[in-house]
């Protein structure tokens, strides 16, 4: 279904490019005093979309790699770090395309049938990039490394007791937990929990993942080569994967249209028409995710210490308007609770709509009959963040919230003042309801900038994570969500779509709704078609 037109355009372009390249080379040679006999253009052309179904070089644009991108998956804190972790390594389990936990490096992951106080993991047959097999010893070493080196997974996996992670046989590991929890698999889907060899050295990262590390230019580009011994059949399809950084999605879209990349992994929703304007050669792959830009109301300060004020702000928000104006329709409304793709998500809660009268009444009731002044602090952590904040300022004004929008850069935002802002905006891309709760809601949750604590909610959570029966657990989760819905401190207004623009020559895109990135950063399933 490819029109001949773009092809012709491309050929014309390359002729012009070659001519210009020659001219530039001449100028350059003159500038350098002549001696250079460089051959001008390099392999840029050879890698373009004429590849066969198998092989080829896939060039993927991502928003902003950074110099702090880590080659050690456990230390990854950045987009780039996650991207690298997903290519080089495997987690035991992952969130699959249906939003359910799926096996990855694990063949099976089973709880103690009674209370989930211990879990047994059986590994599939896989080999490291150096050809040696992946064994139970590696898994144990990985876990113990987290705790001995105080790496981030150590604090996000409080239930794991490193001393009681034991090798059963070459392919089996037994986890005796500090306390029982059904969140065990969820917690091990994060790319930071990827399994590394016992002899792991971050300087020369060897993993079991679909790709091996090629060249890395920090903050600019990372190149991977296919791991031919990968355990998923046929994957990866391409020989080489280049992940290229762009400062914004405009240049990413331009590069796609200009034929410099094959996939623009994250596109601002308002720019979809740009890709469409590029002609028949381009398409957009889009799906709903659990990712959300959520407002955090700090309950330790006025005015959000009063639940009525929190409800008032939630009622002031016109969610449909945000979806239409900020996301041009490419998002879905939220209902102040997290995890819409989680099987336990309560979709019976009434959709919260804007109700300005009620909001004003609640504010008055809380002692703010003339409205209230609030400072909103936020960073442009997502392309749409600033716009979403501007809309909130406008919508809330009608309900009596006089919001001053204080925009800072993200290092400032996450600096020492983080957690002290009366009102702020964060992006959460958590994979499940439990994951979200553990990180942002319950007692000791590390990211809880709202400081909201609810004993009833915490108790329900503790009970739910220990409940092995699905139906029972779902019921408890519904109760948790009802509490959040009634008196929580987050305004969950929208869930974002993952929008990936790509050349029509590339296929194999799959939706990973509860994922932390476009197509779950699973680039191994992508291939050139035809």
């Amino acid at each position, binding site marked *: 279904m490819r029109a001949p037109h773009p092809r012709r*355009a*491309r050929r*014309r*372009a390359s002729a*012009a*490019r*070659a001519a*210009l*390249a020659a001219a*530039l*080379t001449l*100028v*350059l040679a003159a*500038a350098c005093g002549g001696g250079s006999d*460089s051959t*001008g*253009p*390099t*392999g*840029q052309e050879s890698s373009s979309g004429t590849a066969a179904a198998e092989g080829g070089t896939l060039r993927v644009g991502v928003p*902003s790699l*950074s*110099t*702090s*991108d880590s080659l050690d998956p456990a230390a990854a*804190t*950045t987009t780039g770090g996650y991207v690298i972790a997903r290519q080089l390594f495997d987690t035991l389990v992952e969130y699959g395309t249906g939003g359910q936990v799926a096996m990855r490096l694990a063949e099976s992951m089973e709880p103690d049938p009674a209370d989930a106080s211990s879990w047994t993991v059986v590994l599939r047959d896989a080999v490291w990039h150096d050809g040696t097999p992946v064994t139970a010893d590696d898994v144990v070493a990985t876990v113990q490394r987290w705790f001995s080196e105080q790496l*981030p997974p150590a*604090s*996000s996996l409080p239930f794991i007791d490193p001393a009681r992670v034991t090798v059963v046989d070459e392919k089996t590991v037994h986890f005796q937990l500090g306390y029982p929890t059904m969140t065990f698999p969820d917690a091990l889907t994060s790319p930071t929990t990827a399994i590394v060899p016992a002899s792991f050295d971050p300087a020369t990262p060897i993993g079991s993942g679909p790709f091996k590390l090629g*060249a890395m*230019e*920090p*903050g*600019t*580009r990372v190149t991977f080569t296919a791991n031919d011994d990968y355990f998923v059949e046929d994957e990866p399809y391409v020989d080489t994967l280049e992940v*290229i*950084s*762009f*400062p*914004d999605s405009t*240049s*990413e879209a*331009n*590069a796609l*249209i*200009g*034929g*410099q*990349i094959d996939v623009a992994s994250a596109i601002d929703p308002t720019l979809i028409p740009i890709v469409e304007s*590029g002609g028949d050669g381009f398409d957009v792959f889009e799906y709903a995710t659990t990712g959300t830009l959520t407002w955090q109301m700090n309950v330790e300060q006025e005015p959000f210490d009063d639940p009525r004020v929190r409800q008032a702000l939630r009622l002031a928000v016109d969610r449909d308007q945000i979806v239409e104006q900020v996301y041009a329709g490419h998002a879905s409304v939220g209902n102040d609770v997290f995890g819409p793709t989680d099987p336990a998500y309560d979709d019976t809660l009434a959709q919260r709509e804007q109700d300005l009268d009620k909001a004003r009444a609640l504010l008055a009731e809380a002692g703010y009959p003339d409205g209230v002044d609030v400072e909103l602090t936020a960073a442009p952590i997502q392309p749409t963040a600033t716009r979403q904040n501007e809309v909130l300022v406008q919508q809330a004004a009608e309900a009596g919230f006089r919001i001053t929008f204080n925009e800072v*850069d993200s*290092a*400032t*935002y*996450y*600096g*020492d003042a*983080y957690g002290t802002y009366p009102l702020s905006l964060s992006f959460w891309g958590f994979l499940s309801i439990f994951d979200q709760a553990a990180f942002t809601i319950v007692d000791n949750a590390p*990211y809880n900038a709202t400081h909201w604590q609810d004993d009833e909610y915490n108790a329900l959570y503790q009970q739910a994570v220990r409940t092995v029966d699905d139906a029972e657990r779902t019921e408890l989760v519904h109760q948790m969500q009802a509490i959040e819905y009634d008196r929580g401190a987050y305004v969950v207004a929208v869930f974002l779509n993952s929008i990936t623009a790509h050349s029509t020559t590339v296929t194999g895109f799959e939706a990973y709704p509860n994922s932390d990135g476009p197509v779950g950063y699973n680039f191994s399933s992508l291939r050139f078609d035809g």
Partner: protein
Amino acid sequence: MTTTSLRRGTAITLALSPVARYVLRRLLLGVAMLFVVSVVVFFFTQALPGDVARQVLGQTATDDQVARLREQLGLDRGVVAQYLDWIGGLVTFDLGTSLTSGTPVADLVGTRVANSATIVVLTAVILIPLAVALGVAAARSPGGVVDGVVSGSVLLILALPEFIIAILVVVLLATNVWRLFAPTSILDPAVPAWEQPDLLVLPVLALVIGSLPYFTESIRTTMTDELTSEHVTWARLCGVAERRILWRHALPNAVGPGLQVAGTTLIYLTGGIVAVENVFAFPGVGSALTAAVANRDIPVVQAIAMLLATVALVVYLVADVLGILLTPRLRTALT
């Protein structure tokens, strides 16, 4: 004893040519200026809010972990101690280590510098002869076609920020109107920038267009002054041919002032490149700078700041020295 040292001192001064002495004096002054710049840059970077340790470790980090990393990075020491450490490194050409990546700053910034230098030099190589040709042509026939076109486009382009020019160039030549050139400059880091000329076309074009008016206008003004000067009038009255007047009598005198303008333009290019690099996703100094500021990678910010200051100093020095060497009045005044 005093006489001997005095005499030796005189001998040394006498051994140096006046130009060399001038250069030496300027170099010493330059070192002093760089020292002041280093103090200013250091203390401005210290004032940045946020914390690189937290930036590196991410939000999940505990206060303990942050404190440990800060200690490891040496951020827990006094400001003066940190400054002395840094300046001590600078003196030995050690730019320090990037806080975020842990790699030496020189490695991290090296390719970026080479990339930016490539487009700046290419721009200068195209810009300077072009501006001289246009400026001379405009000055030759004031009110003529070239003059009109030059002043018109000078006006128009002066009114457009470079990033707008860059965006328009992309729309026109890379994406929407014609797809002639690569819209972004995603250079392959494994290959030197100058071996990927197709990716340099548009940034260089945008920079040339953006800095052409100022330079052309200056050349035009200088050349107009020269061509209306008494000595050119007299040369005409002595029967010297117009062409000869242009190239032999007028242009050499315009070189000195022209060099000054070229220097300023070059400095302006290194500063103005930031926005243009952003448009093209160009992996250069400008984008490294904005990223380093955003990540609080202070050693990188400091290194880039010192680099830009040094480049500015050297460019001004070279322009001044060449200007003196090429302007007999100034050169003989030194003697």
